[in-house]
């Protein structure tokens, strides 16, 4: 019995998981999406640092999609994809907005400015970040290599 417990603690419960869903553009749905991804990562026994990074970055990407992409319009949707595997996390978030010019986005901080930290945090906490579709889709990943 002791060895079963020990094996369970050491090995992930599943080798990989794919989550793909669309949510209405609302704060409640946004939180539920983040909770689902976090719970799945915890269930798969990802290290806490990765769970925290993924949680914050997905949250920030969804905030951008909801407020800036979809103009907080509950009739619009946000599409979310997560590919989770040992040593690799990839998440993509796509809104139904008009997009924006990614070159206008801050990659550095204006110290006292209360805005402009969402994408900055994503870029700092993820290993790679790509913006597609004229700014309507962000793809971000963490990897061990």
């Amino acid at each position, binding site marked *: 019995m002791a060895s079963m417990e020990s094996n369970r603690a050491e090995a992930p419960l599943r080798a990989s998981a794919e989550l793909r869903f669309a949510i209405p553009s609302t*704060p409640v749905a946004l*939180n539920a999406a983040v909770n689902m991804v976090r719970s799945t990562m915890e269930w798969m026994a990802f290290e806490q640092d990765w769970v925290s990074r993924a*949680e914050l970055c997905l*949250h920030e990407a969804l905030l951008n999609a909801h407020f800036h992409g979809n103009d907080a319009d509950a009739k619009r949707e946000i599409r979310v994809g997560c590919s989770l595997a040992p040593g690799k996390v990839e998440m993509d978030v796509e809104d139904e907005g008009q997009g924006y010019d990614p070159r206008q986005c801050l990659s550095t901080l204006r110290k*006292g400015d*209360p805005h402009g*930290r969402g994408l900055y*945090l994503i870029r*700092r*906490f993820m290993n790679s970040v790509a913006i597609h579709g004229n700014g309507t889709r962000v793809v971000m990943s963490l990897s061990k290599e």
Partner: protein
Amino acid sequence: MDISVMEGSDNTTVALRGRFDFQTHLEFRRTVEGLLRAGHSALTLDLSEVSFIDSSALGMLLLARENCEKAGGVVVLNRPQEYVDKVLKLCHFDQLFQVLR
């Protein structure tokens, strides 16, 4: 998020508990505005029970700092948890606020 206030003569402690994010905006702003109206501009924000912080909350902290400083006070961040502290450092908040660890 739960917010509780302990008023003191020199310094007022605002204890935050739970997720400090975009949904906390109104509650946090009203709390700080109420304290400023009552003459409390030296605030210590107890972050020891904050489990998550997002970019909106960082913006709220900056606005609170600006408003307290305008009133002659200061905002001190007290005992952030490890991950919250990491976010604060990444955004250089340790250069903008006194952070007690």
